[in-house]
């Protein structure tokens, strides 16, 4: 046993230093050198202040904004310091109540909308920080946003279409719209 202890101990310490210090620190150095923007969180700054990350969704409830997906983080929605899904099962009455509540809220906010509600607008995302919604979910909200901003529908439609991110290689992932990017673009239009 003692004869085994020395190699075990020495090997463990050195391999720990290599894989647990040298490797992550080297990766950090290279990442900061090659891709500093991504490595530091793809942050969006305005007037020298961080206003969010391209990759992390924010909570939107105002009528003049597109809304993201329901978020199950606590205590507040889109709490990026504590990512989480709802973990509700499909047959749990609490889940069906949550969906029903989301549905009623959406229908009330979109009285002119006759289409069925896209599923991603009434179900919580896995991370609680989903930055995107489906194209259908963006289209569903256009009437409301156009009315709130007194904006021409055609102009808004074009803006949404310009923000559609397609599939990678036309195959991987889903067509989607980044909610924060779209809303910032909307505010940018109004400001001009």
């Amino acid at each position, binding site marked *: 046993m003692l004869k085994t202890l020395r190699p075990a101990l020495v090997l463990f310490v050195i391999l720990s230093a290599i894989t647990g210090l040298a*490797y992550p620190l080297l990766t950090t150095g290279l990442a900061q050198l090659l891709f500093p923007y991504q490595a530091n969180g793809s942050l969006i700054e305005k007037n020298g202040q*961080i206003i969010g990350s391209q990759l992390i969704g924010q909570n939107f409830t105002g009528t003049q904004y597109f809304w993201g997906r329901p978020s199950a983080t606590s205590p507040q929605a889109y709490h990026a310091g504590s990512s989480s899904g709802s973990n509700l099962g499909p*047959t749990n009455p609490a889940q069906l109540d949550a969906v029903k509540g989301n549905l009623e809220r959406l229908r009330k906010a979109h009285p002119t909308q006759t289409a069925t509600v896209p*599923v991603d607008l009434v179900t919580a995302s896995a*991370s609680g920080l989903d930055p*995107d919604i489906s194209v259908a979910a963006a289209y569903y909200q256009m009437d409301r946003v156009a009315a709130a901003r007194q904006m021409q529908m055609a102009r808004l439609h074009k803006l949404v279409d310009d923000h559609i*991110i397609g599939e990678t290689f036309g195959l*991987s992932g889903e*067509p989607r719209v980044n909610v924060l990017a779209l809303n910032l673009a909307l505010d940018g239009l109004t400001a001009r």
Partner: protein
Amino acid sequence: MSTPALLQLGLFLLVLLALAWPLSSYITRVMQGENPGVLRFLAPLERSLYRIAGIRPDEDMGWRSYAVALLLFNLLGALAIYGLQRLQGILPLNPQALAAVTPDSSFNTAISFITNTNWQGYAGETTMSYLTQMLGLTVQNFLSAATGAAVVIALIRGFARHNAARIGNFWVDVSRFTLYILLPLSLVLALVFTQQGVIQNLLPYQTAHTVEVTQFQQPKLDAKGSPLIGKDGKPVMVDSQTRQQTLPMGPVASQEAIKMLGTNGGGFFNANSAHPFENPTPLSNLLQELAIFLIPAALCLVFGRMVGDRRQGWAILAAMLLMFVTAVVVETSAEQAGVPQLSAMGVDQQASSMQAGGNMEGKESRFGIIDTSLFTVITTAASCGGVVAMHDSLTPVGGLVPTFLMQLGEVVFGGVGSGLYGMLVFAILAVFIAGLMVGRTPEYLGKKIETYEMKMTAITILVTPILVLVLTAIAVSLDAGKAGIANPGAHGFSEILYAFTSAANNNGSAFAGLSANTPFYNIMTAIAMFFGRFLMIVPILAIAGSLAAKKRLAVTSGTLPTHGPLFVVLLIGTVLLVGALNYVPALALGPVVEHLQMVSGH
């Protein structure tokens, strides 16, 4: 299954095989002690490592010494992780000033990470300092994977050698697999991940000033900082608002790369690979999927190369692929079909060019149904356990598939090394059953399979079902176990069954609604993880030692060929039969009942 889903699966398999083939040639060279090619500049480092540690690299070990070295090495790993978590409050690289982790959670996490399970009872971003993530968790991501690889290489040597007393040198196997295979692959992958948006820094958490103010309710706290309880027994809630969003930071990409390549699966953040900072794009997602299967697939081909008959490796790989593809088809169809109760309310779950549709609860928009389902099957077929969706919110059949894949013993690709050694044990069982049918002494790759090997085979095949079923039964019988359930009814039973299935088979994913960070679950799942790992490894090393000592029999007309379609079918049949016999009753009580309830509208 839809055409895009089939194309996505086809693309994945094509790239996987194209990468696994050359990698298998490289791994074979490295593990047979040959020149590691472009990485030979690391050779002086390797040599000095042996010199300082007093290791004689050319001195092979018998199976007992190999097992002792392995256990001791892993024990040291457990102590180190436990210590780092308990002391992180006073150690550097802790910008958020996170306090020491509780003893029971530290113990659970230590066992979890040395066993390549990477079950997580904690939420990373609010629990672990950067030092613990790097020097504790990342290290074991490497070393537990290298341990698994060492065991399978030792077992392959058992088949390849004859009349030999030794099966290799554990120190050399672990060092070479870490230095020449895991480390370079991880570095490259980590940088590609960063390019895609995975973060990699040592900054404190950043604060963003959000576009809108968020209104919310939170529990009112008393003077001591604990929640105030109202007359109705519930916490008193107060209205709050904030315009700040805390953005977590950290060395994520470096951990993410080895988390996938080492089939570990322990996420930097609570949401694991569903978190946009861990898995930001469909491309990063595809690369994560490939990274999970890459080494397990390559090791099948390494097996063929090392035993001197490549067809043997392809046969094992074919059996894995067939089971895998079937699982993907079932999973994707179940999730695409969605939840009938939602359609009845007027929710649109139909897939179209404008939306993924299907069961989107607990899924991310960028991945939709197709990518999520593929990832879910990959991560549970392999013993990775990273998640891209909340498995607790899958449809009943969508949850049954990952559960059953784990219950097969993590042999459909499985973990690095552990998938193949598990599958080779099933291959031994398959030739044994075939031998019984024709009344001939079974043999595999020219090695006679006798009583000793079959005893060890029986232990390894029975240990995980016993752990899963007994511990599940205990948990559902005790209040401490039932207290953790989040979803009522059959689904609650599925949560507990999934937890012990995942722990004992060293997967690590969860039906995460289960409140598992309690002393009861921390200890019970640690038991499952520890014995599920090492009660497999030790008997398998015993098999390796016993096989190495045997002489090789010549192939005759009576030998069962183990490289053709007949054997592939026999092997799949054996795996499915053992899995079904062990688990059908338990599955009937969980996902099957829930599925019937869902379709009948209750």
